[in-house]
């Protein structure tokens, strides 16, 4: 569950993560994978190929608007004869996607002047908040930081215990109250205690909530207000956790969570299936949130900073089979 030694060694191998990422992102009969180059090799660019690209973008949940925007720019370049062949077309698609995502590839920097650096983790139900916190805690403790986890999900049964297991596995301190407690009170106490103990990073879990439930969004605002009462600059990071399996609604989630408490970064989870998480492209275009981490597996190590080039490459290059990228 939490990864054995051999598994953590895997990440040490140079390029290991990239390779795994690419292998996992392209599992299954997914879009723009091995076959794209073969499918179109040697063919002139025609409407069919552009349609095929459209289909693949749509099937990756990129969404109608972003897909149209991306294809429009490609079509124009085809019309201007800037793209000689299909290879050039695919290179142009890769460039366009990277251009959209690259500004969002801003890693999470823990500013040491904030002690503790407070990370509030939010998202809809089942997006993977608690697991992401556990993985991030492990990562931070490995880097030698002292971490505390605050069990702000006091609603779902056993959510506190679930986080506690992660705290133990990562060697993080743990702050919790009884089930049903006010989440504001939990994070308030946690922040004071983290301060007193000189903890570097405090991560606060919150209950999953649908963004259209205004009373639950109000509760989140209260959590933020309470944090500010202890430290005016907190929270220093508000991470919105998005499930790569989600479709167009993820955009609405991003908009509304941002409106309520101000999102400062995204975590994209469950990229190890066949879902592509293409909605982040739409989110990147609309909102430009930094994408901090992606989750590509169940092990604590399967959690890495977002890298736009690797992400796009993993999606559209020929992958490990031809070893085109490294």
């Amino acid at each position, binding site marked *: *569950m939490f990864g054995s030694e051999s598994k953590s060694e895997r990440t040490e191998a140079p390029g290991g993560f990239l390779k795994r990422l690419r292998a996992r992102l392209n*599992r*299954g*009969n997914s879009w723009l994978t091995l076959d794209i180059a073969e499918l179109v090799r040697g063919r002139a660019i025609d409407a069919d190929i552009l349609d095929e690209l459209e*289909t693949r973008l*749509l*099937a*990756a*949940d990129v*969404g*109608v608007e972003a897909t149209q925007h991306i294809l429009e720019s490609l079509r124009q370049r085809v019309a201007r004869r800037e793209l000689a062949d299909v290879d050039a077309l695919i290179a142009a698609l890769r460039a366009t996607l990277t251009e959209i995502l690259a500004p969002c590839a801003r890693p999470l920097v823990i500013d040491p002047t904030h002690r503790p650096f407070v990370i509030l983790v939010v998202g*809809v*139900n*089942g*997006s*993977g908040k608690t*697991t992401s916190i*556990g993985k991030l805690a492990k990562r931070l403790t490995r880097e030698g930081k002292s971490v505390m986890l605050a069990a702000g999900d006091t*609603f*779902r*049964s*056993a*959510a506190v*215990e*679930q986080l*506690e*297991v*992660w705290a133990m596995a990562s060697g993080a301190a743990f702050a919790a109250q009884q089930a049903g407690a006010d989440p504001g009170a939990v994070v308030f106490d946690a922040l004071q205690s983290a301060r007193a103990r000189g903890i570097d990073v405090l991560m606060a879990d919150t209950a999953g909530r*649908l*963004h*259209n*439930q*205004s*009373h639950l969004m109000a509760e989140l605002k209260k959590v933020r207000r309470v944090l500010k009462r202890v430290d005016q600059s907190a929270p220093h990071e508000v991470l919105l956790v998005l*499930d790569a*399996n*989600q*479709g*167009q*609604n*993820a955009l*609405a989630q991003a908009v509304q969570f941002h409106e309520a408490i101000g999102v400062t970064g995204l975590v994209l989870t*469950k990229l*190890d*299936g*066949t*879902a*592509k998480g293409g*909605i982040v492209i739409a989110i990147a275009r609309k909102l430009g949130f930094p994408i901090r981490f992606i989750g590509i597996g*169940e092990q604590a190590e399967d959690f890495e900073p977002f890298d736009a080039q690797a992400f796009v490459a993993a999606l559209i290059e020929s992958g490990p089979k031809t070893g085109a990228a490294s």
Partner: protein
Amino acid sequence: MFENLSARLTRTTEKLRGRGRITEDNIAEALREVRVALLEADVALPVIKSFIEAVKAKALGAEVSASLSPGQAFIGILHREMVELMGGARAGFSLRAQPPIVVLLAGLQGAGKTTTAAKLARWLIEREKKRVLLTSTDISRPAAILQLERLAGEVGAQFFRAPPAQSPAEIARAALDEARRGVFDILIVDTAGRLHVDEALMAEVRQIDALVSASERLFVVDAMAGQDAINAARAFGATLDLTGIVLTKADGDARGGAALSVRQVTGKPIVFMGVGEKTDALEPFDPERMASRILGMGDVVSLVEQVQREVTSDEATRIAQKVARGKGFDLADLKGQLEQVQKLGGMSSLLDKLPAAAGRRAVSADQGDREVRRQIAIINSMTQRERRQPGVIDGSRRRRIAGGAGVQVQDVNRLLKQFQDMQRMMKSMKGGHLRRLMGAFKGRLP
């Protein structure tokens, strides 16, 4: 967010008016709009393709009746087709097998299996008077077993906790033995979330199914799922001979196109829908409503149901009586009503559920929400006496209230004027059809 499909189709089908019949030519643009709308609703591409073919076949040659707008006629065809595709032989459960009937839940991580297990247990206990045993074979997610054990306690089901270090298959087998020994009617087996491409875990869930010979094998899928839902559904369908689908988190504002996709690729009916965080928020699937929602036609029925869920019935009855008598409705009651609007997710959420025509008003939802908040603030700045007897509010009191609520005196005046209008309206309706309306409504309150 997106322009409503009805509105778009009304525009694009306008030129059908007067043509008499729908032809391939004059419908092409409308079908493109349908495709976009379905993509925005997360219906999977292959499913959209076959749906559009089917609609086209039905629509071609259809007479555009003179009395209806062509757009409405076309939407009618769309809606009927979608209802037909999503409808199943049944909603709910078949409980006729030999007890203990075993229900197996499977799906991706975070789909909502554990919550659904508890909701199903509660449904079966309360509606069907069954004795239910719950068990969890999720040994991978920390505290997953504890989560279901606690939920079991909440809903009044028994929980089977296996000795530690047992495999999921062993747990399931032992739970079945326990269900037999304890003469339970139903055993619900929760499983760990798994990726459909994880062969080892897919084999594991098949093994669990074989061991407990489940009579219901339900695929649990998130209403917010995107295009990939069909890949997951197909794989789970190939691994387990699914008997049905549970659509979760349907209380969100996702259009829920995954419902149509998953229904299509598995060929299995959607039996239940999760519509909230509490364990009683489970409803039989209703294809009519889901079709309206996917097509962006609003969901008035769910609005009514949400009102019924959120509005406490005592409070509603009390106010209904006051309204029916035509007197006694005071500003404190008005505040209660305004707070209900907020509890229901605010104006924006309410307007979202209304069909296009009603939803697009001069006042934006946000303005509405601000107004509701302001009015509550004004009433909060009044004394108890002022709330009961607004007649005593003179100029000086108005200034004090305005200051307290941080608004202008005109805002206070406007609220009081509106309140007077409401009272007058209630008096005029006294004994009239409003009472009958309220009576009918009362019967439907929980």
